[in-house]
């Protein structure tokens, strides 16, 4: 194993750990501004993950993708969320359906589930490519955990912006799994997906602001009345 490979492995392990820790932090913290900062760290970790894969595979194109991920998920999208927080003037998630402690317990349960479920995926990719040889296969459960925790956030939070954060975590998880299992996603596909997510983030941030302006609340529950 060359130095480069060992560096890549280290980076992969570090980014995986960072992804998990940020996910836990997001469940724990209720301040929206802090959530946006944690989200930026998570986006950067995802970019690091992609970069590590690029290093292992020696693919320049994937390196470019890593930079794009860093720009979009590490900078632009968290900035959009932070701006949304400033505009709507809501600083905290007041009354989540699940208190932080219970949320952390649930997240633990989901992590365990993700670990159990992703065994066949890890086994399937363990045989091929450098990514899969060691920590690569090990990182798949982390990606899946991100997906589940993201969903948990979406379900348990009441504020539109917190739900947006949950959605972004979910998307980060999907991206992580995609990069790990497919050993890199085609540039065009990644670009398309990322732009879609950016669009969703923009729309939701604007929607949250408008919601606040129109009905004086940013709790999604207020939308009950809209059903037919």
């Amino acid at each position, binding site marked *: 194993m060359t130095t480069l490979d060992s560096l890549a492995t280290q980076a992969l392990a570090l980014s995986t750990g960072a992804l998990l820790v940020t996910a836990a932090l997001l469940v724990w913290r209720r301040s929206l501004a802090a959530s946006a900062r944690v989200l930026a760290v998570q986006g950067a970790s995802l970019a690091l993950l992609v970069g590590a894969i690029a290093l292992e595979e020696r693919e320049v194109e994937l390196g470019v993708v890593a930079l794009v991920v860093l720009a979009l998920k590490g900078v632009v999208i968290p900035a959009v969320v932070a701006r949304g927080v400033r505009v709507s003037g809501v600083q905290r998630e007041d009354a989540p359906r699940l208190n932080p402690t219970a949320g952390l317990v649930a997240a633990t349960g989901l992590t365990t*589930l993700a670990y159990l*479920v992703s065994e066949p995926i890890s086994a399937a990719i363990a045989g091929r490519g450098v990514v899969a040889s060691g920590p690569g296969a090990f990182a798949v459960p982390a990606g899946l955990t991100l997906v589940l925790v993201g*969903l948990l956030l*979406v*379900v348990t939070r009441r504020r539109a912006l917190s739900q947006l954060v949950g959605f972004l975590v979910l998307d980060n998880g999907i991206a992580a799994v995609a990069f790990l299992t497919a050993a890199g996603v085609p540039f065009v596909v990644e670009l398309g997906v990322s732009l879609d997510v950016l669009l969703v983030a923009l729309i939701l941030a604007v929607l949250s602001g408008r919601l606040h302006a129109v009905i004086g609340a940013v709790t999604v529950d207020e939308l*009950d*009345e809209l059903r037919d």
Partner: protein
Amino acid sequence: MTPLWVQAAAALLAVLLAVVAPARLRGRLAGAACAVTAGAGVWGGAQAMAGGAGVLVVGTALPGVSMTFAPDRLGGLFIILAGGVGVVASVYGIGYAAWAARTTWAGFAVLLLGMQLVPAAGDVLGFLLPWELMAGGSAVLVLAEHRTRPSARPAGVWYTVMTHLSLVTILGGFALLVVATGGQDFATLATADPAASGAAFVLLTLGFAAKAGLVPLHVWLPRAHPEAPSHASAAMSAAMVKMGLYGLLLVTVRLLPGGPAWWAWTLIGLGAVSAVYGILQAGVASDLKRLLAYSTTENLGLMVLALGVALLLRPAAPVASATALLACLLLAVSHAAFKTTLFLGAGSVLHATGERDLDRLGGLVHTMPWTATTFAIGALGAAALPLTGGFVAEWVLLQALVRGGETVDRTVTVATPLAIGVVALTAGLALLTFVKAFGIGFLARPRTPGTQRAHRAPVSMRAGMVAAAAAVVALGVAPGPVAVALARAVDVPVTSTGVAGIALPGAGPVLDPALVAALGLGLTVPVVAAVLVAARRAPRVVEVPAWGCGAVRDDPRVQYTATSYAEPLLRVFDDALQPERDVEVTHIAESRYLAARVAYRQELSDVVETRLYRPVLRAVDVVADRVRRVHNGSVSRYLTFAFGALVAVLVVVAR
């Protein structure tokens, strides 16, 4: 494969022109592009029937997934059918839909392209994608006049729902076959074991029967056809529903030949019920386009009956089986010709008078001679009278049935006479129906002022109608070459004989309409001449004003109407049709012996719809109401459902 590209390019151009061309030129430009699309279809179909179409593989956005187009002879026949109807309908549409909306022309182009690509498909994806193109385009057309006619909306909903259900079952059927054989191109699917493909057959038959408008899946047809613009109704009725037949042929002849006998019985049953029920409803309908739509159900029923008979007879009587298959194709071609003529004629009537209710028409033979003549020819074809394609087709079908009965198989010897009975009953009722359609609509005196002001159709409309009517007559007078070409599509030995007559396979019977016509003329001309001479010698009839005891028929309301003409039929089949009659008598206040007003109302609804669909829909409504209680409008709750479902699935997977 050039025709395919031309078709696609021309259809794209038509859509483009429909969208961007100024309203003044839209009909002409888009119509011309549609005609080119359809013309390229005829060209491609001819190439396929000659056996030189080749294979085209089109990649999709997904890697490793592609569509194949490889039309065989049978497919080529249906491409020609769709293309031929398309050319005529497009030319007609230039005049008829000159000011139609953008979406109407765009939808029409998409419909044409879809219909021409479905039979060209060489694999499942290449079949389903055009199938949806066809469904989408026609759904737009059904809704085309939703602004002026509110009834178009429910028709659109019915059509969309039925066509989607049909897609779902077809998809399911193909999926079963793909799982069984491990490939999605038709050559691989053909390796499936018919004996083990019963479920696939049922699903596919359901889907294709819905598209073909067979009872009890026909409910969309009498609603959708009348609502679409007439050139589109013609294309839908004459060509689009045939794709359902093509699907059935594809399954039973190309992919899974040699299926068990119950397949044949299923098709025979479907066909027989559809034929009789369709023509009964047509016989009592007074809306001209609704009548034609029900007649489509009848004709498709006959075709499927012929197909079923062909499958049933294949082991016992191969020659008769081949004849029945030929009859099926002949019925399809002749129906395409006469139904185009009839729908275009109905469109001209609608265009000129704004009426399609037969009870309000009449006397059009004087004001619209072209339309009347072509409609009459189409009506002759629909009634299966000699010198039209309809007669030839039904003759071949009856020959197949008669000769198929000469076997030792007991079930077959019972089935064929019953089938003959069905065909005979339908033929009789069809005659009555089309006598009504022509006699009430075009003869007699105008029943409403709007009918009196009827004007002639524009040139392009007349051209379309004349071309279609010419096809009806050509098929009837010179069926030989057509039959030979059709027979080659399904490998049946048929020869042309005499003056373009048909000689059926085996030492079969011969039909030579041209000779028969000559013979008929030779016999009738002297008789008619003699009668005329005799009439000349007889004393002249002098007309004098009568006393007026009902003999002076000034009021057009005294005439026979479509409803009164069909009344005896309605009484005979009262149980099957179940009309709602309502007599409301308002008495004078002082005396109950004197009536101030008597109102009579009679309504005919589709029995299948009221007895089969309404209860199902009501049950679905009840269930939906229950389910709605769970949906309280809370977004979080919906998200929780999704999350819970995901976790549950993962837990199940992890075990």
